């Protein structure tokens, strides 16, 4: 029901799902906004541009085209819109694709919670309208060279073999530091400007995802690249929603992918530093309060140190 007299606060939202009843349900749920819906993923990118939409909500499993691919295309042609993947079942491949290619803002499972989804869309739309866009993460060569000599890359990894491998890949090009655990990682971040954090999800049998989430919550312009062996779809989804990870790579690390990811992560950080308002596009969701697996189980002391990491070392933006 595209309203002709929609108030200025009404967002323009594009929805794509091969089940038309999902579209009708979303339309009714988001009736205070102007919605555009299609069951044909092939026409999604054109619609997004044509109607200059603020938010895109897309299903993952569709016969003509996967949601991740739809969102990747929209990211290219209409980067201003924030992208939400709404799916009934998510295999790891889809989740990884949604981070690495679609750069989704949130990953939402069906059946969704109405209030949460409505709030999510409203928040996303506000950000899409207000926050400037960083269209490309790749920097011009000269600027990139300047960035990589200045911006610290921190690797959190306790497996010495992997550390060694990452050292070989990264040392020649970047200012790299290594940490075995969260404590050491924070020490490094307190002393060096750190723009990119490359991290396992676990070190020394303790969980690192809480650290990554807290870091993103308070310092959204840092780009995190998760390199993991223990990939599972659920953790990955949490790392997207609550950690806004920049890239997620599965071990063994390959030189090419790793370099590419770190290069563009540096580009992302560098541009956010100059354009702090854009960081709002990458804000992480506050973890679910009721605890569960997604709560930030971090000691208060550590959390405080993360919160008070000096701004000068982290660009000037603050969450």
């Amino acid at each position: 029901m595209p309203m002709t007299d929609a108030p200025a606060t009404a967002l323009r939202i594009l929805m794509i799902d091969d089940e038309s009843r999902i579209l009708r349900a979303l339309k009714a749920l988001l009736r205070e906004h102007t919605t555009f819906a299609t069951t044909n993923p092939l026409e999604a990118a054109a619609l997004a541009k044509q109607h200059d939409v603020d938010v895109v909500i897309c299903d993952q499993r569709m016969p003509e085209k996967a949601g991740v691919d739809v969102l990747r295309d929209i990211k290219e042609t209409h980067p201003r819109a924030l992208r939400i993947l709404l799916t009934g079942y998510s295999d790891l491949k889809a989740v990884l694709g949604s981070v690495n290619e679609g750069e989704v803002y949130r990953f939402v499972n069906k059946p969704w919670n109405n209030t949460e989804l409505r709030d999510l869309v409203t928040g996303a739309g506000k950000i899409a309208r207000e926050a400037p866009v960083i269209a490309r993460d790749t920097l011009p060569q000269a600027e990139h060279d300047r960035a990589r000599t200045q911006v610290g890359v921190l690797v959190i990894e306790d497996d010495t073999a992997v550390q060694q491998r990452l050292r070989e890949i990264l040392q020649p090009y970047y200012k790299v530091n290594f940490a075995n655990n969260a404590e050491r990682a924070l020490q490094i971040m307190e002393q060096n400007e750190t723009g990119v954090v490359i991290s396992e999800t676990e070190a020394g049998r303790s969980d690192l995802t809480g650290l990554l989430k807290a870091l993103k919550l308070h310092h959204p312009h840092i780009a995190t690249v998760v390199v993991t062996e223990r990939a599972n779809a659920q953790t990955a989804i949490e790392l997207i929603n609550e950690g806004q990870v920049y890239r997620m790579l599965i071990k063994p690390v390959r030189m090419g992918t790793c370099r590419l990811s770190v290069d563009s992560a540096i580009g992302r950080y560098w541009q956010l530093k100059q354009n702090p308002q854009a960081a709002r596009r990458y804000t992480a969701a506050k973890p679910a309060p009721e605890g569960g697996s997604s709560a930030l189980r971090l000691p208060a002391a550590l959390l405080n140190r993360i919160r008070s990491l000096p701004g000068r070392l982290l660009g000037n933006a603050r969450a």
Partner: protein
Amino acid sequence: MLLIIVIVLVVACAALGVALAQQRRQNLVLRAGQAETEAELKHLQASQSQVIHTTKLASLGQMVAGVAHEINTPLGFVKSNVEVVGDLLDDYRKLVKQYDAAVQVCLQPVDLIFNADKASLDKLVKHVEEARRKLFEARTAVEKSPLLKDAKELLGDASEGLAQLSSLVVNLKGFSRVDRDGMDTMDLNEGIESALMIAQHQLRDRVKVVKHLQPLPKVRCMPSQMNQVFLNLITNAAQAIDGDGTLTVDSRVDGGQVQVDISDTGCGIADDVLPKIFDPFFTTKPVGEGTGLGLSIVHKIVKGHGGTIKVRTTPRKGTTFTVSLPVNVSGPAAAESA
């Protein structure tokens, strides 16, 4: 998950190969040692049924993925719609309240009229005009409101969604016989329906499904295995169709046989491939997509039930697999395996 399964399969395959080689050697060197050979054979059979078991798990994973999606999609819109309809009704109640208020305003002059002096009569007329206008507006708002129509549409969707969910549950019940590995009597049409539902996410909108299912007498069989047969054949058919196509499933009774045809309008099978399709681990699909076990399992199960399987194929036109089972099976050998 898939990786683990593949690894398990590879290990099982290697174990088979090793066991086979060992067995050959033993046969040559020690013809008299028959007891030992028999033991090896047992071992071999055991690992073969192990392979069947892991493949069952593979399709279980596939099934979970498909079913989760099939359930969560209707659940998504049913849940949302029911809540939204509540909100719409609240909005509608507001309209009715406004209408009520307008009616009240209209009734006021009736009281006023009794002690109206000439001076206030003018005011009264104005009031009545204004009240009429308001009443008219409120009534139009109620009449023109799309709220009830929208609510009805959303509830219509919700009830279709619920129907979808309950048929899923019925089909899943059919499939959950996976847990009960024993012999039972079964209407093969139900197995076909269950398998079609499980394979739904591979067919969805791309492959048209045509069913000609005639009433069948119940067959004594292992239902979980028959479900597996249909699922494997349907999966192959779906995979053989590149883009749009049709999957046709026929069932009938012919003499003492129950027959099921599963036909696709897919790529067909080339002459040089045809003789190998029932071989374990033979596949033309890329690594990770096919294990090449599907048809060997189908073959083993059907034979175990005293039935037969036939293929008719025309390259680039399509393929039909026909499974025939005797109506009265007596204790199939298959009951031992898996």
